[in-house]
Each structure stands twice: as structure tokens, then as C-alpha cells.
């Protein structure tokens, strides 16, 4: 039966004549299919449309082999000709969109013409339609809310703003459909709707611009969506047309596409519901390009590859999000000449280079490697003596030996002398993230947490244990360092958001108020996670004496709540819900846990995470190299979450040891590690490097001389330092990695060029230059030591020659060497890890 509300097919689709033509030559087309010479693949091949306005997107691809589609198959969706064999049952648009029109069965012919139009390939799609009735069953939750989302009505910038727009308020992304339905149907004495004459409703006249609308034109008057809204109002604007089922996942077709610039690809999106039903929601899904320099996406789901590289399209519908990945290679081939895999990291990196047609840069030299790996693993410059020894060493395994020494894993106490530096450096990293600060914890609590973190790294505590101890921490805030985590995060919401972001790389803040816009997490998920922390409190103690003012973190037994991990089943514990949480969090089944750490460490070492931002792991933000992420994560899990093993795997790889200079072929790559990405030294490492290079140690307030900047326990006010502040030492106010800004600024440049810190150290009579002059070292020796102390390499002959000229032009050797040291300290080679 055909519903009276439906306008003639020509009003909805400009395909009526074609459809009629299809009826005419349908039989011939079927015969021509048997004579095809350009095979095509149509998805899906069988269609069932249910109810009014049901739509479905066909996707037609060139078959690569036989009748199969590959990632490289061309999309023919908009070049083939569609013909409905019975337009009263189903109509079809030129872009391959089917629309249910009446109950029954029919077929849609899909025809691709060969060159010259002589050869044809034809596929027939079986279509059945049911559920079309005199009065369409339109529900707000099933039909209207997706339309509002699609057209942006319930976005934060429109009617989901804090106070709505024009007095009309909707929930963000429709997370509260009950409220939204009432806002439309009941608010303001039903002024927005006319249930007798729906087309006269303000609700429809505004978005179609029949009356002024601040949001502009949002809805075409002759569109299917408009007709759905009319039908809904005519039915009285019901909340639901039956039981509303949740969308459990989205299925996107194609999931992956390798393309060339200029290529287009139509997407098809199917929603899977909790009752196991499915529905094609291509027309109502929201699409976003995750990199607009590579992909453009139309509201219809048509993707255009506009640049080279790898990017994804994010698709959202209901409460779910999914992606489709696109790869547009830089070149058709990559030879990878001279490439030799050091380990599995290199195998997977090379595969990505080949896929993308990227030629990586060559290996860096020994001096560069020594400086790079020293700064990356222990945050410290190599001494001139160790630089000379390493550079001059003929041992073929010297790089690996160095890595093991820096990680303190040689087993020889004399060679494992860097372990404390390693612990200090990584304590600094994690103290930033955990936000250890005396401003919040007081001095004693801050030190307790600092010492616990440092001891954990000194002993290379497995990371799952580290996190378990932190998340289940209890006891005195002075004696149990991790207990301070529960003072930094003083309530269940803070604990939820911090724990998810720190150890899962999941940002949950959005879900506190509304459904996460880019993820599957709802308020219910947020509250379920927060329930793990509900019983945590404190009690007083006098174990540190009358003056101690120590408090003790305890869990109140019997705290109830449906505690549910993200994406998991509810967990129970009679006394402390954090115990099962820690088990789930660090369990091997939880891929987020390992991936989060791997991604951070890849970012620290290679300058960019496999996922960026590094603490934003989600299905809609995939790794640039999925295989590498999976392999590193598996390696991390297999090693029982051994951070040193993870570091060792990465820095041992050829990938890590590539030169930082890009080649012409890979200069455009910033995401696939084809050349080492230079990194600015962190503020603390830079100050330590300046101290080591100049031979003059910085004295920090309230700490004994000899304390290094990387050993500072605090970001609070106790040990404030102007240099560190200028170079963006974070205040530890946020769990986001982004708090430590990598960007340079004018104040930094002025401080290194003209500031007191460097000038004073360079000119200090007890500093490096002063000692070299006192020792009456030769000019060549002085210059060599200054280069080794700053850049970790010997000067080149040209640099030595230039230095001699500079000496001759200088008023005195002292000024010459001080100026040379100053220049080296201001060079990019010094200021960056390269």
C-alpha cells in the first residue's frame, strides 16, 4: 500500500524516468549481465526495507578478481545506472539510494557501462518492502532524533547550547530523548507544533526557512526527512513507536580504502540494535573527516580523497561511532634500500612505508644516537668522556650495549650506574601526569608520592602493579605514596576522569554530562565507572605524632553501586570495589591499558604517538600503524608490562635510529616516522644540560646543591625556578600530556640568548671554560670539549677552522671560548633532541 503522504517519486528523486526505463528494459539488462566484461560488486545484493521512509544505500565497486572487492577497488556507486523494476515498491536515486514506497518485492538493476558504452555489466538487487501502512508508525526516538542530530539541531552550538536557542532547548546530541520530545511537543503551550496541520508547525517552518531561523536553512521542504517529521506530527508526536532499542554498533562499508588523490568513495552505514535488528542509516549518519587535508566528506557519505597520506572518516549515529580508513600513498612503490630490520618494530614500520610509498631516511651517526638515546632514556647529556669512548668504539654491538647500560640492565653494578637517573627522569614524566604537587598534597604528601614513584621506576616495577597500587591505594598519605592519588583526585568524578585518561587513554569528561560525541560512552558508563571510587574516604591518624596531621585513605565497606568498567560487565567486591577495578584495568583482556602506555612511550621516543592526541584512544581515532600498535602492545603484555623492555624494543629499532633530516621523498611525512622527529628538550632536561655543558650547577631553593632539575619532586611553589617556568615546566594541573607545551616562544629565545641563567653560567670562573683556561688546554682541545659537552660530538674540521678564526678575532681566549659556548648553547643542535 502506498501512503498518501508520500509525494510522487519525482519530487523525492529525480529518477522516475530512469526507473520507468528500467521497467522497460529490465529483461534485456538481465541478459546483458551475462555478457559483462567489467565485473562489478554491489553491496548489499539483497535488501529488505521495513516501514515508511526506510532507506538504503547501495555501494557499487569494481570487482578486482572474480566477484570480490579489494581495498583498491574503484567505487562505481555514482557512475552506474540504477533502475527499479517496480517504483511502487521501491525507488532508487542516481546515487544508489533506495526508498521504500509500498509493500511488495521487486528488483533493482545496477548497470555499469564499459568503455564506449558497448559493454555492460549488470547486477540485480533483490528488494522486498514490508510495513508500509496507512498511518506510518513514526517515533521520536527511532526516527526524529536521528534527523535532529543529522541536521545539527541538537549540537552544542545550536539548540543544545546551555540555554538553548530562541527558547528552544534540546539535549546535547539527543542524549535525553524524553526531554527533547517534550520540548518540541509540549513546551510553550505547544507553540512549536500544529498537530492538525503539521506543515504549519513552527518546528518545521523554521528549519525550512519559511520563517526566519537563526540557524539558517537546515531542512529541504521536499526532503524525506521533512516528510518523516510531518508524519510524526500527524501521529501526535509520540515518544516512541514501540520499544526503542539501543544502537549497539555501526557497520561501515567499506571499512578501508586505498585510493589515489581525486578518488571518491560512497560509504554505507548499517546500525545494529540491541534486539539484533539492523537498519541502513547512511542517510542519517553524521560524517566527519579526521584530516581535511586528505579527505573531504559530504553529508551523503561520499568521500573524496584530496591529499596524500592516511586518514579516516568518523561516522556517528545513535550512541555509536565508527570509522572508515583511507590510504592515499605518497608513491606507488618504496624500495627501502639498505633497510634492515633490527626487530619487529622495523618489520611493521617497513610494511607501512611500503603501503604508503615512503622512503625512510638513513641511520643516524653514532654521536647523534648517543645524545638522542641518552636524553630520551635518562634525560641527560652524555659526558664528553663517554661521548668520545662511544664514538671511537669499534664494537658492532655498541648501540645495544649503550641501551642496556642506560636502562641499567647489564647486570654489572659498575655499568648499571644510570639507573637512578633513569628513575628520576621517568618519575618526572609520571609525576606530571599523576599531578604530584605540594600545592595540593602539602610537602610531606608530595614527597611520599614522589618517593614511591621513583622507587617504582628504580626497581622497574611492572606497570600493571604500579597502576594497581595507585588505583587501590590506601593508608597514610605520608607512608603510602600512592594514597595521595586520592587526595589529588578528591572525589569519584575526578578519580574516574583521571584514571580513564591516565591508564586507558580515554577521555570521559564529556560523558559526565551527556553522551560522548565521538565514542560509545554514555552517562551511565561514566557513573558505572565512578561507582568504583564511591566508598573512598579518609580518617585521621596520629602515627606521625601530634603535629603530623596525617590522614589515612580508607574505603568504607558496604558502599553500594553498580560498578561497571568501560565496555564491561558489572563487578563486585564486598569490601573494596577498586580491587576488581584494578584487575580489570590491568588485565590482559583490556587492550586499552597496554595501548595507552605504548602510545605514550612511542610519543616520548619517536616524537609523535601512533595515536594523537596521545591520551585520546578511541575507535574513531585509530593508530597510524595499527599493526605496530598491536605488536608493541602485545610485546608489552607478554613482557608482563615491563617498561624497560618496551623502551628497549623501541630504541633498539632501526626506526628510532633514523636520521632526523628528511629526504625529498619523505619530507611530507609527519606521521609515519620515516625520519626522526626532532623534539625540543623538556625544561628540566634542558636546564640540566646547560648545567652539565657549562659545568655550573643550578641551586634550587630548599634543595641541596647537586639536585638536578629532572629530580625536582614538585611542580608547586616550593621549588619554583624562572628558567623552568619559562621553558614550560607544567604546573601539574591537568592529566593531559598537552600541559607540557612543546611550542617555542619568544620568552624562551630571549632567555637563552640574553637571560641571566646561561650568561652567568658561561662566564662562571669555576665553570667549564674557566677550568679549561686554568688547565691551559690547547685551543683544539678546548673547542673539542665544548662541542662534546654541548652537542655530544667532535667539531668538524670546518668548525675547528672557524673557531681558530674566531679566536684570532676575539679580545681574549676567555671571551672567545665563552662566546663559543654561548653560541653552542643557543644552537638548535643543543636545544633539540635530534
Amino acid at each position, binding site marked *: 500500500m502506498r501512503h498518501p503522504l508520500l509525494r510522487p517519486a519525482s519530487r523525492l528523486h529525480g529518477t522516475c524516468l530512469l526507473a520507468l526505463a528500467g521497467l522497460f528494459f529490465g529483461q534485456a539488462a538481465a541478459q546483458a549481465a551475462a555478457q559483462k566484461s567489467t565485473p562489478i560488486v554491489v553491496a548489499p545484493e539483497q535488501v529488505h526495507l521495513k516501514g515508511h521512509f526506510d532507506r538504503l544505500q547501495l555501494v557499487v565497486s569494481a570487482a578486482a578478481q572474480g566477484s570480490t572487492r579489494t581495498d583498491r577497488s574503484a567505487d562505481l556507486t555514482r557512475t552506474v545506472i540504477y533502475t527499479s523494476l517496480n517504483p511502487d515498491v521501491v525507488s532508487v536515486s542516481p546515487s544508489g539510494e533506495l526508498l521504500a514506497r509500498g509493500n511488495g518485492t521487486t528488483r533493482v538493476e545496477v548497470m555499469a557501462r564499459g568503455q564506449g558504452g558497448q559493454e555492460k555489466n549488470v547486477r540485480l538487487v533483490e528488494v522486498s518492502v514490508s510495513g508500509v501502512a496507512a498511518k506510518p508508525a513514526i517515533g521520536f526516538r527511532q526516527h526524529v532524533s536521528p534527523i535532529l542530530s543529522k541536521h545539527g539541531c541538537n549540537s552544542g552550538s545550536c539548540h543544545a547550547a546551555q540555554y538553548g536557542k530562541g527558547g528552544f532547548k534540546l539535549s546535547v546530541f539527543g542524549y535525553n530523548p524524553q526531554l527533547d520530545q517534550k520540548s518540541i511537543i509540549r513546551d510553550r503551550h505547544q507553540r512549536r507544533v500544529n498537530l492538525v496541520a503539521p506543515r504549519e508547525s513552527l518546528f518545521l517552518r523554521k528549519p525550512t526557512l519559511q520563517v526566519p531561523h537563526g540557524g539558517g536553512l537546515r531542512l529541504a521542504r521536499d526532503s524525506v526527512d521533512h516528510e518523516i517529521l510531518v508524519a510524526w506530527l500527524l501521529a501526535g508526536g509520540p515518544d516512541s513507536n514501540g520499544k526503542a532499542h539501543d544502537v549497539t554498533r555501526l557497520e561501515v562499508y567499506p571499512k578501508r580504502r586505498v585510493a589515489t588523490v581525486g578518488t571518491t568513495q560512497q560509504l554505507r552505514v548499517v546500525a545494529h540494535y540491541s534486539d539484533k535488528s539492523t537498519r541502513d542509516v547512511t542517510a542519517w549518519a553524521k560524517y566527519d573527516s579526521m584530516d581535511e587535508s586528505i579527505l573531504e566528506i559530504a553529508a551523503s557519505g561520499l568521500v573524496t580523497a584530496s591529499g596524500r597520506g592516511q586518514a579516516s572518516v568518523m561516522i556517528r549515529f545513535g550512541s555509536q561511532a565508527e570509522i572508515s580508513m583511507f590510504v592515499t600513498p605518497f608513491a606507488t612503490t618504496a624500495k627501502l634500500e639498505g633497510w634492515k630490520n633490527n626487530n619487529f618494530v622495523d618489520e611493521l614500520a617497513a610494511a607501512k612505508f611500503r603501503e604508503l610509498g615512503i622512503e625512510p631516511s638513513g641511520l643516524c651517526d653514532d654521536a647523534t644516537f648517543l645524545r638522542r638515546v641518552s636524553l630520551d632514556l635518562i634525560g641527560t647529556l652524555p659526558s664528553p668522556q663517554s661521548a668520545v669512548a662511544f664514538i671511537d668504539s669499534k664494537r658492532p654491538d655498541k648501540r645495544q650495549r649503550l641501551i642496556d647500560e642506560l636502562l641499567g640492565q647489564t647486570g654489572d653494578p659498575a655499568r648499571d650506574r644510570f639507573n637512578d637517573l633513569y628513575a628520576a627522569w621517568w618519575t618526572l614524566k609520571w609525576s606530571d601526569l599523576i599531578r604530584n604537587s605540594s600545592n595540593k598534597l602539602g610537602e*610531606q604528601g608530595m*614527597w611520599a608520592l614522589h618517593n614511591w614513584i621513583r622507587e617504582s621506576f628504580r626497581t622497574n616495577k611492572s606497570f600493571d602493579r604500579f597502576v594497581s597500587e595507585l588505583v587501590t591505594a590506601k593508608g597514610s598519605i605520608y607512608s603510602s605514596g600512592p594514597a595521595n592519588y586520592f587526595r589529588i583526585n578528591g572525589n569519584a568524578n575526578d578519580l574516574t576522569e583521571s584514571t580513564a585518561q591516565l591508564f586507558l587513554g580515554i577521555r570521559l569528561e564529556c560523558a559526565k554530562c551527556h553522551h560522548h560525541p565521538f565514542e560509545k560512552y554514555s552517562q551511565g558508563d561514566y557513573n558505572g565507572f565512578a561507582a568504583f571510587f564511591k566508598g573512598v574516604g579518609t580518617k585521621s591518624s*596520629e602515627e*606521625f*605524632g*601530634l603535629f*603530623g596531621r596525617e590522614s589515612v585513605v580508607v574505603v568504607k565497606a558496604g558502599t553500594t553501586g553498580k560498578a561497571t568498567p568501560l565496555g564491561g560487565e558489572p563487578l563486585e567486591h564486598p*569490601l573494596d570495589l577498586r580491587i576488581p577495578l584494578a584487575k580489570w584495568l590491568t588485565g590482559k583482556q583490556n587492550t586499552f591499558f597496554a595501548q595507552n602506555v605504548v602510545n605514550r612511550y612511542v610519543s616520548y621516543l619517536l616524537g609523535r604517538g601512533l595515536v594523537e592526541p596521545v591520551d585520546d584512544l578511541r575507535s574513531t581515532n585509530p593508530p597510524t600503524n595499527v599493526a605496530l600498535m598491536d605488536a608493541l602492545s602485545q610485546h608489552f603484555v607478554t613482557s608482563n608490562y615491563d617498561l624497560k623492555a618496551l623502551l628497549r624494543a623501541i630504541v633498539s629499532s632501526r626506526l628510532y635510529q633514523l636520521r632526523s633530516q628528511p629526504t625529498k621523498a619523505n619530507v611530507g611525512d609527519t606521521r609515519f616516522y620515516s625520519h626522526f622527529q626532532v623534539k625540543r628538550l623538556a625544561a628540566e632536561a634542558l636546564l640540566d644540560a646547560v648545567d652539565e655543558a657549562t659545568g655550573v650547577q643550578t641551586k634550587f631553593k630548599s634543595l*641541596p646543591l647537586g639536585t638536578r632539575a629532572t629530580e625536582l619532586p614538585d611542580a608547586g611553589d616550593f621549588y619554583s625556578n624562572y628558567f623552568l617556568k619559562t621553558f614550560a615546566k607544567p604546573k601539574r594541573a591537568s592529566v593531559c600530556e598537552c600541559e607540557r607545551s612543546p611550542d617555542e616562544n619568544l620568552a624562551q629565545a630571549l632567555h637563552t640568548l640574553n637571560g641571566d641563567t646561561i650568561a652567568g653560567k658561561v662566564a662562571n670562573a669555576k665553570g667549564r671554560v674557566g677550568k679549561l683556561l686554568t688547565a691551559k688546554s690547547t685551543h683544539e682541545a678546548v673547542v673539542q670539549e665544548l662541542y662534546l659537552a654541548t652537542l655530544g660530538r667532535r667539531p668538524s674540521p670546518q668548525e675547528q677552522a672557524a673557531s681558530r678564526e674566531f679566536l684570532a678575532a676575539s679580545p681574549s681566549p676567555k671571551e672567545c671560548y665563552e662566546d663559543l659556548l654561548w653560541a653552542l648553547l643557543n644552537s638548535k643542535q643543543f636545544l633539540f633532541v635530534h
Partner: protein
Amino acid sequence: MLRPAPVSIFRLIAAAMLVAAVPTAARAQYPMLMSLKPVAAQVGQASEHTITSRYNLYGAYQVLVSGTGVTAEVVPVPKPKDGKTPSLTSLKLKFTVAANALPGVRDFRLATPRGASTIGQIVIVADKIVNETGNNNSAKTAQAITLPATICGAIEQAEDVDVFKFTAKKGQPLSFLVRSQRLQDRIHDLQKHVDPILTLRTAAGSTLASSDNYFFADPFLAATAPADGEYTLEIRDVRYQGNGNWQYSIESHSRPVVETIYPLAVALGIDVSLAPIGHHLGSAGSLKINLPSDTPEGRGWHRLALGPATSNPVQVVASRLPTSVEAAAANNDPKSAQAVTVPSTISGRIESEADIDCFVFEAKKGQKYTFEVIARRAGSALDAHLRILDAKGKQLALNDDLRRLKRLSQDSKFENFTVPADGKYVIEVRDVHLRGGPRFVYAIRTSRAVPYFDLFLDSDKTQLSPATHGVIFVRVERHNGFGSAIDLGVEGLPKGVTARCGRILAEGTDGCIILTAEAKAQLAIANITVSGTEIQTADAKSGPPLTSRARPMQETYMPGGGRNHWPVDAHAVNVGTLSDIRSVKLSTESVTLKPGTSTTIKVNFERAPGFTKNVTLDVLYRHLGSVYGNSLPKGVTIDAGASKTLITGKASEGQIVLKAAADAPEVQMQQVSVMANVSINFVMKATYSSPPLMVSVSKK
């Protein structure tokens, strides 16, 4: 108990010298001991130590040291040539430690003409003392020592780091026990306390082990030398703060260290074998003990036979009740609870993380029991969480932390549990943080709940001068329905001192004892014992009256100006020289108030010549908004508006107006002190008492 050391002729000389030499004003400033250097003394040795204080130590003539086997004397100070009294804030003490003296911490106190000092502490140790010397602030300048030794030093200023170096053989057990922060609770005026941290490093400078807070804030570090060679031991305040009074001792050796025992509770008079729990125990085997039958019940320090050797002192809980030990079988829930009888003392251990121990007993309706977990106070790592459940597991009572002697402990106690019905009941104990392990031992003392009371003295010393009065306030905490009045008593007064003991009324919480030093009293000091005896009413049940011995509480100047207390072992009464107030006299010895009326007591006190500081009169012992002693009868208060209590300049007269509320109950002859207070600092004051004032309230 503090015991007086033998009084030497020096005392008499000092007294004679001071009577002549002390100035005429501001003599009420008794010495407040701040630190002892070195803070440890070796058994079997005599050693000199320097005590430092706030206020003048000059003339100190006697040292009281707690326990047996340790005595001390003041090293004589040269007589000043100008005849003026020097102001000494440090002097030498000579401690003599018997070879069989029990190692551990001892309290000591000095007697001076200006009064008894606050408490100081000394650590008695087994090994020789090595004092920190020179610049030892880095590994390069580390001070060489030889183990075994007890290192004594001070984290004397901000950023101070003390480094010591020693050699050890591969496999050599090493242990380092620090006492520092634990010695500071009794330091009366130390406004900030140390939080030491120890770090052991290899010759290459790599950290081998570190310890921050093991015994409360003090570290303990046990390690094994990984190779022959030199090692450094570093101690500092974890915050890099420092203070000249932050003394420490580090007992450094290779012997076994027994931290606690299992089972923790021991019956008296029988041979008991105990498992040692600690460090470097190796094949030391079990500990043997046989506590004499007259051993006081409760916790006590004992050295036990450990194989052929003797262990370090360790706390043992002596029990006169029947004892039992947790069985090997699981007892993690009420269904599998281990059957015990009550009253008894049960020893157990929280063996592993999340372990819960349950014990079931039978009881009759109406019976009353008290359950007390003794663990943390006895050296266990347990933070006990105690519940009483019915047989089905329903919670009937719960206690986490125990407040006793005004201080908070992580042990648990539930008093006066009344059995609701005949049946079985379960005692459940666990660590509140669900921790567990060998160190988590406990004893549960289950006893019939009977009425009793605890008494506390505020404070730990009473200063007298000839022909003056002093007052001791006694406060009661009543338990399990105890509601009687209490007669107070005192023993052990120094010669020339008498006491008038008051009472604590049934409706009240405080009573007072007024001491009087006769006019010819000589310099003297003695530790006294204050006790209370129940005043039984005519209809009381038969049996002897309940008694209790009072626990002195040393007052402490809290950061910010608050006043708090720390329990100490002894209360000292000191007779010094004449002080700022020579007498406090009242216009009457007794007053009787009718409900709804008031009465005025004129107060006249005698100032020392030249003493013009403010004097505050009071009947209540108080600081800021808190009252620490109030022996007035119920319903009787001070009429502040009508009273004149602030006496300035040379004035020496004031008045106290007492008023009785309209509903004040009848009371006969309640002893009250009218005090003249002179501030020493913001918190502490010198208190001079009037003769006893007896306050009665007649019938309406």
C-alpha cells in the same frame, strides 16, 4: 617510672648558690628540654651528652631516668666569677648504662631551682656510638664508620644530608634502624618534626635500597650487600628541612632484627615458643619465653632467647586470661569461624591480603563483653578493623580506631557489648586496608565488661617553691556505667611537701590535689603516684571499691598556639627556689552557696620584688576555649563580669565571684584551687595555687 638518681653534694651547693643568685623576676620559666646530643648511649658504658633547652638550665642538680639500669648526673658547671646567674641553655649530662640495661628509649627529666624540666629521651643501644663529625654532606665527603655501630647525628639545618661510608662483604646482612621522629613527640616546644629517610647506595652511587617510614615516620632498612666493597648510607629529612634539635640514632649492624612475634599474646608462668618475625633471621629458629607469673598484664618489652643468642627487645602481650591461637584452618567468614571461649586472649595473624579472621563464641542474653585488639601498639603492621556479628553475619558492633589516653591508635576496641540473646556470636578482625602478611599479628582480648574508670593528670609536673601551693588536676573517663564519685590520693611526695586531696564528684569529671611546700622545704624532686578510689554509696553492692592509677599527660605547645597532651610515665613534683609569686591567699577557706546566689572570694597574692608581669586569677585550668581542669561542683560557675582576674603591674589583689545556678545540686565541701597564672609563652604558664577552697552548695 622515673627514678631519682642519687642526690649528690652538688645539689646542695647548687641550691645554696641559686638562692643567693637568682634574679627577682621571671623565674617561673622552667627548662623545656629540646634535644640530647648524642641521643644514644651504649649499654655497659658511661658517656657524656649535651642537653639543650629553652630557658635556663643553670643549677640543674638531679636527673631522673625511667626504668632500671640507667642513671645520669649533671656534669658540674663552673661557678660564675661575677656572681651573676648565667643563662645556660645547654649543659653536659653523664649517663651511665648498666651492662644488663634493656635497650630502648628512656625518659629523663632534670631538676632545677626553677622547676622540673619537661621530658627528654635517650636511646639505649647495644653497639658503640659514632658521632657525626665534620662535613659529611655528600658521598665525596662521607664519614667513614665501621659496623656495628650506632650513628648519632643531627639533621641540623635545611638541606642537610648526612652521609656515612662503610665496607661490607658480599652477602653480609645489613640493617639500619633510625630513631628520630619518634623521639620528638615529647619535646614540649618543638614546632616542627623531622621525617627522616634513609638511602643505601653502592660505591658507584646507585641506590641499593631506601626506606622512608617504617616504624611510623622513622625508617628501617634491611639489605644484603651484593658484593664486597664500600657502601654509603645517607640520612636526611625527606623534605630537606632541618633543625638543630632533630637528633637521630641509626643502629647499624648485621644481627637478626626481631620486629614482632607470633603468637603475640603469651600466658604467664609457662614455657612458650614463639615465631620471630623480622629481618636477617636466617636459621635463628624460634624464640623461647617464660614470663613470670607476676608480669603485669598487657604489653611489655622483653628480650627473648633466639637460638644461642638473645633477641633485641620486642613487645610481648602478657595475658592472665586463657590464651588461644588462630588455627590453620580457614576462618574467613562466620560460617567457618574458629570456636573460642570468652573471656580469653586470642592470638592471630592476617596472613595475606584481604584475609579476614573470624572467631565464634557462645554467650547468654544480657552478658556484657569488651573486645580489644592489641596490634599496632605492640609493633604489628595491622590497622585493625573489628566487628561483632551474629551467627548469620549481621553486624552488631564495629570499631576501627581506638582513642585511649587521649591519643588515637589504629587498634580497635569495642566496650560493653551487650549480648542481645542466647546464641553464638562472631568476632571478626581484618586489616582496614585489606593488607596482610607476617607482620600483621594481633591479640584480641575478650573480657567481661565491668565498670571502671581511667584517670589523667594535667600535666606531668608540679612546680613548688617554699611556702607555696601547687595544684594537680585529675580528670576521669568513666567506662561501662561507672558513675561514682572518686576520692583522690597521692604517694611519693618529696620531703617537705604535703597534699590535700580532693575528689571527683559523681556529676563531675575533674578533681584536684593541692600540694603545699613548707617554708623550709629544700630543693627536691620526686615522681609521685596519683590514684583514685571509688566512693561507694550506701546502697552499693558489696566488694572492694574500684581504684585506678592516674596517667600523667605532658602538655605540648601545638603549632599555631594550641595545647595538647602526650602520655608520659611519671609526674614529678619539684621544690625549687622562691619564684615570681610568693603566696596566694584567699579571704575565706570555704564558701557555701545557695542555688541562684553568688559569693565573692577576695584574692591577694604576693609578688616577688620587681615582678610586675600580668597575673591572671582563675578557678578553671584552661587555654583559649578549652577547659582542662574544673573541680567546681555542678552548677557553680565563675561570674566573669563580677570577678577581677587580670592583675597588672604591681597590683596584687583581685576577686573571684562564684555563682550557683538555680538548679545547682547540693554538694558538701568540694575542693577548689584559686590559681594565679603567669604566662611563660603563649600556651604554657606557671601556676600558683591558693590553699584549698572548699565550696558547698546548700539545698534550695
